[in-house]
């Protein structure tokens, strides 16, 4: 409390302008993520039952995945050039990326849609922070992150079964492709969600994406050309799942890596432009 005997000069001038920390901070987006992560955790820790539900869901999904994989390899020893352990790696990446999407990307986008509909986006837009950063880091569902752990375990098992093993270099490149993949999925989601500025209701989007994402369970290289291309450039699931799996199974070419990096960069710039364009035309939910 002011005047509680604290020896601060400002306590004698309660009307002094408040002080802000004005330093430039390149890690600001990460710090904001950390902040909201804390609040999200505080929120979700109240609902422990959700952890049980999530564990159950992840268990079922993992079980079905393994059974299907077993069935396929009961018939053949290779699918489009991929061995069983290699496909297990694809599955691991698929679960892991699914965990990232469901815990960090999708909840933010759904919140954005709700905020646009209810007009509460106004609170974000009047904060002295980059609005895109704010809407992208606000939500984190810790229980959904269970899939990140499950995916990691499946990956570890798959890698231990691969004859070649994997070096530090490949692991770093894998991490990089995973990051690029996540950026592309994020951009895809934000591009589509930004359309909510014009088309207010987009509830079905979630299901549509979920359905498409299931196709990433298999390497996109096994699909026919048109589908492969759509799943790579239209909805960048190929980049998000297949490419990291390629990095783990010594399939990744320099060209693919360069393409992934370039595509991620371009997509990010386009998304940022489109977001700002959307904001300029945002008319708000009228009161």
């Amino acid at each position: 409390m002011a005047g509680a005997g604290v020896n601060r000069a400002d306590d004698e001038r309660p009307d002094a302008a408040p002080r802000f920390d004005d330093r430039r901070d390149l890690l600001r987006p990460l710090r904001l993520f950390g902040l909201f992560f804390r609040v999200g955790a505080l929120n979700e820790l109240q609902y422990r039952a959700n952890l049980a539900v999530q564990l159950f869901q992840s268990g079922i999904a993992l079980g079905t995945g393994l059974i299907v994989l077993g069935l396929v390899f009961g018939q053949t020893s290779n699918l489009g050039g991929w061995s069983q352990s290699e496909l297990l790696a694809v599955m691991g990446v698929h679960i892991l990326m699914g965990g990232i999407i469901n815990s960090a990307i999708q909840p933010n986008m759904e919140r954005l849609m709700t905020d646009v509909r209810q007009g509460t986006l106004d609170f974000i837009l009047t904060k002295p922070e980059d609005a895109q950063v704010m809407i992208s880091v606000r939500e984190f569902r810790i229980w959904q992150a269970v899939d990140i752990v499950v995916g990691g375990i499946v990956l570890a098992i798959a890698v231990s079964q691969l004859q070649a093993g994997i070096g530090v270099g490949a692991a770093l490149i894998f991490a990089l492709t995973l990051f690029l993949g996540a950026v592309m999925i994020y951009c895809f989601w934000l591009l589509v969600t930004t359309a909510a500025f014009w088309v207010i209701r987009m509830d079905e989007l979630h299901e549509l994406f979920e359905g498409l994402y299931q196709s990433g369970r298999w390497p996109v290289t096994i699909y026919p050309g048109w589908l492969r291309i759509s799943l790579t450039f239209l909805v960048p699931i190929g980049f998000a799942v297949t490419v990291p799996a390629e990095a783990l199974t010594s399939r990744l070419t320099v060209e693919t890596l360069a393409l992934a990096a370039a595509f991620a960069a371009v997509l990010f710039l386009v998304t940022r432009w489109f977001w700002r364009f959307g904001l300029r035309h945002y008319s708000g939910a009228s009161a």
Partner: protein
Amino acid sequence: MTEPAIRVAGLEKTFRVPVREAGLGAAVRSLFKREHREVRAVDGVSFTVEPGEIVGFLGPNGAGKTTTLKMLSGLLHPTGGDATVLGHTPARRQAAFLRRITMVMGNRNQLQWDLPALDSFELIRAIYRLEPSDFRRTRDEFIEILDLGELVKKPVRNLSLGERMKMEFVGALLHRPQVLFLDEPTLGLDVTMQKRIRTFVAEYNRRYGATVLLTSHYMADVQALCRRVIVIHHGRLLFDGGLAELATSFDATKTIGVTLKDGSADLSAYGEILSSDDGRILLRVSRADAPEVTTRLLRDLPVADLTIEDPPIEDVIERVFADAKDERDDATAAAKATAATAASD
């Protein structure tokens, strides 16, 4: 002469909204061919507000109040004209500008629903990057003025509407903004709570010399806080001046209340009778005639008590809008059609 806190010149905002007739057939047609209509929500509004002023923004629903506030807080890009707030162009949404303003909306919350308000305050501190000591002092000061005590430790969802609104105010003012945009901040609150919020706004304005732009449907809010009001209707400025002058310029009448010693009498010869109960009769007379009518009443009748008052501000406002209504009735219809489409979209 100091720089005005808010300067608005010829501000305009036009919305392009899809319109369609009611019914399924029209709905299907609109899937293929959308018809649009331009709605001028704000149509060339100009005014300035000096630092430290509290200005009431009046107008019926759809008059353009909220749209103007949104343009001033950087949420909407004006279609035309200029707006300057604290020397900044709001639409550029610079951090230096956003740190000095705030927006409170009566029906919307920004605090975390499931958490105690204290956690949300901490988040707001971090977003505004406030010095921890400044932050704590401001926070505790507001908690004391609003008498929130231990409530800040309860999850927001467990608070009453009024308590939640007080928390919203604390959260919205933690960074001690110099310009406050308050859009119906007392909406739905009971009278005591409205009063509490009002006192708080007045106290904040007094302590920090902040400029306040307020919209409210409760005239009590406006009367208690604002010496100056700006009236807009159909996006145009109708009046800008003192609350008292509003009555003089739009309602040139006075209300005379008379109580007679010997019960009632027919006073219709003196003026228009507004009401007559418990022996007290209310007469409406034109402002110019008031002295003369009063003299006659006192001379002719056994008067026990006599009062002369300005008409209630609600009546004045009603009159202002009734006058302006005839002018652009079709525009209102258009605005309504818009609202209906937007709601059904």
